[in-house]
């Protein structure tokens, strides 16, 4: 019964995953939610935080969790007229869903009792003065023996050992049954409290608490290290982004760091790729050749073609043709125009490995391009975050005090624009970072989409760079020296203006990505598209000033990469993107 339900719920989640988030809120209002900040600046934002919480998700502290758990148990216990320990076992069995327990119980109480191990009528142990323990086979007086509701007697020592073993085996202890294999009577927390050691009782209660969050489909622990909060999320309420009280923002669906507007699948693939050994392999393929004798990969670091492998191999060979050096020289007519190489190439002997090496190199270069930018934006964001925090702590307060002492007509909220600018920068860096991951997985042949995407990305990025520079460098000037008020007002206008302009660009970008770039047609536009460099110039020259737009369009790939298939599949082994027509990976020969 359980498994059916599991399937059903899993389907729900999957279908939501495929949808793009509806009701996406404007970027600006997000900034306020994400971080704990100094009270004097946070008024409007705090309201929006609690508003968001009511809508979408709730943060639960340790005390909240306990309270809810107790309430649920009490409710079931009262409605079904059973003991609290029995209610607890029942709830745990049905993943803490009160409604499910009600449904199942009233549908078929006997079946439920049997499955869960709650006997209808509890039997007592035999009424003799002495009983034999079923585990150690010793005889003890009746009062030193205990049984579960089934009446099978065991001595206290054996119970303690049994429970202890079960608890140290892990959360399975929550489903503990009578030691007798033919009997399924459940052993609940009341018996644990009676018979177990103090440590074991603690462990058991800790497992019970964890189970309340982990087994319940609606709740998850916050993935931030050291954070004790849990998040309850109402499935079906739009965006998966939640923000914990510890100020860590994450995607509830995949529990990775918040990655709007890119979807969870892409994120998972990207993270895998970053960590995979595949890149090492690709690098080795692209930049090294195996020694003909011992097969170890060799990277050429000098000009000469005469290679000597390291001991113990010490084989000498020609880098170009991988032939033994002793056979080289006069017969093959020299090193750089290694005749044997040309002849062999004509015969087609080296084509396969050369082609693979070529492809690996291209693939690697392309990946490096995107990864570099993803990583740079990541570190840039970290720096911006720390700047923000320092701003909120010491320097900012000092600054405020300075300014206030100068001018009475300068209320604190006037300086809110600086905080807003930094929050905007942090959020935009995050979005920009994930758009690089998106760009990597955008199919090569979708030229129109790619152009559009890179155009939007370029606009957004150039805006962000200007904003970041202004906030970083120009603010520094005002912090260090005494500047007249007029200039400061100008600065404020400029910074606020940049903030809202950047926000617009990013909203455009995010909206476009979330609709899958539907505004642009797919591969049927190929005839009209030109090389990506034209969109490059469009993006960078339209706005003056420093811009990094040149960095974000992909280089056109080598001729070996032109693919007409509309689908690519990603190899499980090395994550190389292969055309659909192939059944084995072109890079590592792994079967699909």
């Amino acid at each position, binding site marked *: 019964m359980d498994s059916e339900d599991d399937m059903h719920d899993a389907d729900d989640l999957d279908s939501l995953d495929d949808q793009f988030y509806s009701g996406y809120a404007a970027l600006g209002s997000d900034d306020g939610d994400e971080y704990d900040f100094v009270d004097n600046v946070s008024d409007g934002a705090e309201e929006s935080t609690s508003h968001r919480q009511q809508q979408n998700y709730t943060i639960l502290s340790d005390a909240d969790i306990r309270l809810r758990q107790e309430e649920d148990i009490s409710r079931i216990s009262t409605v079904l007229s059973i003991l609290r320990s029995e209610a607890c076992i029942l709830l745990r069995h049905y993943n803490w869903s009160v409604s499910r327990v009600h449904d199942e119980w009233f549908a078929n109480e006997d079946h439920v009792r049997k499955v869960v191990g709650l006997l209808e009528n509890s039997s007592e142990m035999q009424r003799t003065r002495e009983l034999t323990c*079923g*585990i*150690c*086979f010793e005889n003890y007086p009746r009062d030193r023996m205990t049984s579960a509701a089934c009446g099978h007697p065991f001595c206290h*020592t*054996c119970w303690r*050992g*049994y429970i*202890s*073993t079960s608890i140290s085996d892990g959360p399975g202890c929550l489903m503990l049954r009578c*030691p*007798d*294999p033919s009997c399924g009577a459940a052993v609940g927390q009341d018996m644990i409290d009676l018979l177990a050691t103090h440590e074991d009782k603690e462990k058991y209660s800790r497992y019970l608490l964890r189970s309340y969050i982990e087994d319940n489909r609606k709740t998850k622990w916050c993935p931030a290290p050291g954070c004790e909060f849990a998040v309850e999320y109402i499935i079906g309420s739009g965006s998966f982004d939640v923000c914990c009280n510890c100020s860590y923002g994450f995607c509830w669906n995949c529990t990775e760091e918040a990655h709007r507007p890119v979807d969870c699948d892409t994120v998972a693939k990207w993270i895998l790729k970053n960590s995979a050994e595949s890149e090492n392999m690709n690098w080795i393929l692209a930049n090294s050749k195996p020694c003909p004798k011992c097969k170890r990969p060799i990277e050429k670091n000098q000009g000469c073609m005469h290679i000597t492998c390291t001991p113990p191999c010490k084989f000498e060979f020609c880098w170009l043709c991988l032939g033994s050096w002793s056979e080289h020289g006069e017969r093959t007519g020299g090193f750089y125009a290694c005749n044997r190489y040309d002849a062999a190439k004509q015969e087609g002997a080296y084509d396969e490995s050369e082609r693979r090496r070529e492809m690996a190199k291209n693939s690697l270069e392309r990946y490096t391009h995107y990864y570099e930018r993803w990583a740079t934006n990541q570190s840039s964001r970290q720096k911006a975050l720390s700047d923000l925090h320092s701003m909120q702590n010491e320097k900012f307060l000092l600054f405020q005090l300075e300014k206030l002492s100068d001018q009475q007509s300068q209320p604190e909220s006037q300086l809110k624009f600086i905080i807003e600018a930094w929050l905007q920068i942090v959020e935009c860096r995050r979005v920009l970072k994930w758009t690089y991951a998106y760009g990597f997985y955008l199919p090569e042949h979708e030229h129109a989409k790619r152009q559009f995407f890179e155009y939007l990305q370029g606009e957004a990025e150039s805006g962000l760079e200007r904003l970041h520079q202004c906030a970083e460098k120009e603010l520094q000037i005002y912090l260090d020296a005494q500047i007249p008020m007029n200039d400061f007002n100008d600065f404020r206008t400029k910074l606020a203006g940049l903030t809202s302009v950047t926000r617009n660009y990013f909203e455009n970008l995010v909206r476009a990505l979330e609709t899958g770039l539907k505004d642009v047609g797919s591969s049927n536009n190929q005839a009209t598209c030109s090389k990506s460099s034209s969109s490059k110039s469009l993006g960078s020259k339209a706005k003056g000033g420093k811009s990094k737009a040149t960095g974000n369009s992909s280089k056109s790939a080598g001729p070996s990469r032109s693919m007409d298939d509309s689908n690519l599949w990603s190899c499980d082994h090395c994550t190389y993107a292969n055309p659909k027509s192939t059944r084995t990976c072109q890079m590592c020969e792994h079967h699909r």
Partner: protein
Amino acid sequence: MSTPARKRLMRDFKRLQQDPPAGISGAPHDNNIMLWNAVIFGPDDTPWDGGEATVVVLGTAVAEGGELPPKASPLLEVVRLMPASRLGGTFKLTLQFTEDYPNKPPTVRFVSRMFHPNIYADGSICLDILQNQWSPIYDVAAILTSIQSLLCDPNPNSPANSEAARMFSENKREYNRKVREIVEQSWTAD
């Protein structure tokens, strides 16, 4: 020195001696009660029991309950004492216990060469009560009895020996022939 595990093992041994189930015997090592040797005889009326056999010793046929020539091996002594004149497979096992007994099962391995869908090449046994379905109520007699009934009641769905499992499902005759082979081998091995 007497831990709950050891006490319980002594109990098991006593029980095994006083009330031995059919076709099963076992005893701990002299100096180590945590390590046991056991022998399981193939269940009657199965290919594992080897069918009727006449015991031939040094060219002389020996009747049931009859006189044994001198220098007979201990195995023949066992044979003489057995009520039936059948000579089934005698399969040797070791059981390694820990201080967690009886809350944790022992590690049981066949020493004799076996051909069975649920027995690995190294002699380990794939049996539920020895893993997740273990209960502290089971004792040595119960373990050995379960293994004995596993012999003629394999579970081809969790094959440890894929060849045996396949043969069992597809070619019973061949399977039985192989079983008889290892039964015969078990007599000679020591």
